[in-house]
């Protein structure tokens, strides 16, 4: 017992130190500017933005999953509901840390409300995620008080489900409506973001829950995880199909921007022309999930969901970087045909800060908020 207590204190100390490092990073960025990033006027959006997209989509995926018991009334999944809502809130907090430190002038954010631009997908994305955070937090508070099925509670569950459905579409449209960057695939990007959200949300939930069960032992019946793993397998299958379709279009088209894009050296390398992160972070876990003995074992679930979680982040980064790597217009005068990127230490520290905030919330929530509680 005391060994466990010691481990918990050590874990909190590590997180505390990471928060201090994160606060120092924030101070450095606000005082010295984003020249600390390895970005430039070609690669504008880098690791912190990729992390934001990743975490925001994971959060949306978790909310979509929570709709199974809370909106669609599948009561056998109720032991997962509270944890899903909580993880969604905590992950969204991590996403906001990352985007907050990515913005050049965060103190001007008041104009988000005072001077809104309703034609801007960025405005809609921020507004939707902001509202979603509030809705989810209130919903969680109600659940914590034992109010799962009141009118207000159901209304909030439905509202958060709709918001979680729209938010990934909005993230996709930020890239999709950009006239100058057709390699982002236009409206298709929105569908892609929604699919990735659902897959990565399911992956995070499985990975996290099984890990917590292993560590604390007070878990939920294993059959429920098997059913969730099946949902996870279907979600992965859809993303695999969509990714193959995207590759086929990419390689067959003769649109000039795509021909230039083909020359881009993949950020994470390639095996036989296929992106490494897609092969190892999407196709491999999908194949593993097709094997029943792997799919039904705890180890198999943890490994496949971990691979998907890493793969998804890298896939978001690859798409983000590949679409920006070629200078636009006269910027080609100052920069090479393709601009390479590797994050600076400060960008890694922003990533660490976002993760730390998430992990602190996960840890405290798991400890004090009875996340596997079900209504009486």
């Amino acid at each position: 017992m005391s060994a466990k207590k010691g481990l918990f204190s050590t874990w909190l100390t590590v997180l505390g130190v990471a928060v201090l490092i994160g606060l120092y990073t924030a101070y450095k960025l606000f005082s010295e500017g984003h020249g600390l990033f390895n970005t430039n006027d070609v690669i504008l959006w880098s690791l912190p933005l990729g992390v934001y997209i990743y975490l925001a989509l994971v959060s949306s995926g978790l909310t979509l999953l929570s709709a199974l018991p809370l909106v669609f009334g599948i009561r056998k999944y109720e032991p997962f509901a509270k944890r899903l809502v909580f993880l969604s809130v905590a992950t969204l907090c991590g996403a906001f840390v990352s985007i907050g430190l990515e913005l050049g002038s965060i103190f001007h954010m008041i104009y988000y409300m005072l001077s809104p631009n309703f034609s801007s997908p960025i405005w809609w994305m921020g507004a939707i995620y902001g509202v979603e955070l509030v809705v989810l937090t209130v919903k969680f508070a109600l659940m914590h008080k034992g109010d799962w099925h009141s009118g207000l509670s159901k209304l909030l569950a439905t509202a958060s489900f709709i918001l979680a459905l729209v938010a990934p579409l909005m993230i996709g449209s930020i890239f999709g409506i950009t006239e100058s960057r057709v390699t982002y695939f236009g409206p298709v990007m929105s569908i892609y973001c929604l699919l990735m959200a659902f897959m990565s949300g399911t992956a995070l939930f499985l990975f996290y829950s099984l890990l917590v069960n292993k560590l604390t032992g007070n878990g939920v019946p294993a059959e429920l995880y098997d059913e969730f793993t099946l949902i996870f397998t279907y979600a992965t299958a859809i993303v695999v199909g969509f990714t193959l379709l995207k590759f086929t279009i990419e390689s067959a088209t003769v649109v000039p921007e795509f021909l230039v894009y083909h020359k881009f050296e993949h950020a994470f390398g390639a095996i036989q022309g296929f992106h490494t992160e897609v092969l190892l972070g999407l196709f491999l876990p999908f194949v593993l999930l097709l094997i029943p003995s792997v799919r039904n074992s705890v180890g198999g679930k943890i490994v496949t969901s971990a691979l998907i979680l890493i793969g998804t982040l890298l896939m978001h980064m690859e798409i983000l970087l590949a679409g920006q790597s070629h200078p636009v217009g006269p910027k080609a005068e100052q920069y090479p045909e393709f601009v390479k990127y590797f994050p600076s230490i400060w960008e890694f520290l922003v990533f660490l800060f976002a993760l730390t905030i998430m992990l602190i919330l996960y840890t405290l929530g798991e400890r004090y908020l009875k996340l596997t509680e079900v209504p009486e």
Partner: protein
Amino acid sequence: MSRYAMVIDLQRCVGCGSCSIACRNENNVPDGIYWSNKITETVGTFPNVRHHYIPTLCNHCEYAPCVRGCPTKAMHKLDNGITMHDPKKCIGCKYCEFNCPYGVIYFNWKEPHQFWKNNKALFKGGTSSPREEVEKIGAKKTPYFNPERGATLPANRPKGVVEKCTFCDHRVRKGLLPRCVEACPANARIFGDIKASDSDVAKLLGKFRPFRLREQLGTNPHVFYVRDFNPAQYRPTKGGV
């Protein structure tokens, strides 16, 4: 209300770059940022090669993607068609820069004009340091600081916001031409109200067949290019097989 536009006569343009230098001085543009820039292009294979030069600046598009995408309306249109930026509202998301099909918006990654804060002289006791130079002149931040730029925009933009060409709106409102137009020694830049049929801009657009950059995107840019500089001659031929 006027609708301002610029015509660039590529036959007159000699590629001297005085537009860019004048712009930099007028608008206190920091190092690494180009409100006025150029696209150079080399075509053919040696020995049959030619060099082409297209001056660039903000196109002040009618349907500006930067304006549409800006979440706080920091990037906005003026009634006279100029695409303007308000750094006070800019959150530094860089979406306008990401969205601009012409590559003419830049971000202030760090405090601008840092070079002029440097206290180190090139030759100690022989030359003055950049900071000393600024102090001797009594200027703000740079020796070539132009306070007039501050009439409609912070004269020096802070770090963490974007910036771009404003068609020298602070001069235009006083009835002056944009500085790049005034500085062009070859009269290659012609500025005016495209709606007024008797303006030089309108006349030129009716005389030549203008083109605009990436017209197919439907942004309706208001920087037009006419003619081309090409002194090359060739003997009439039908080619051969």
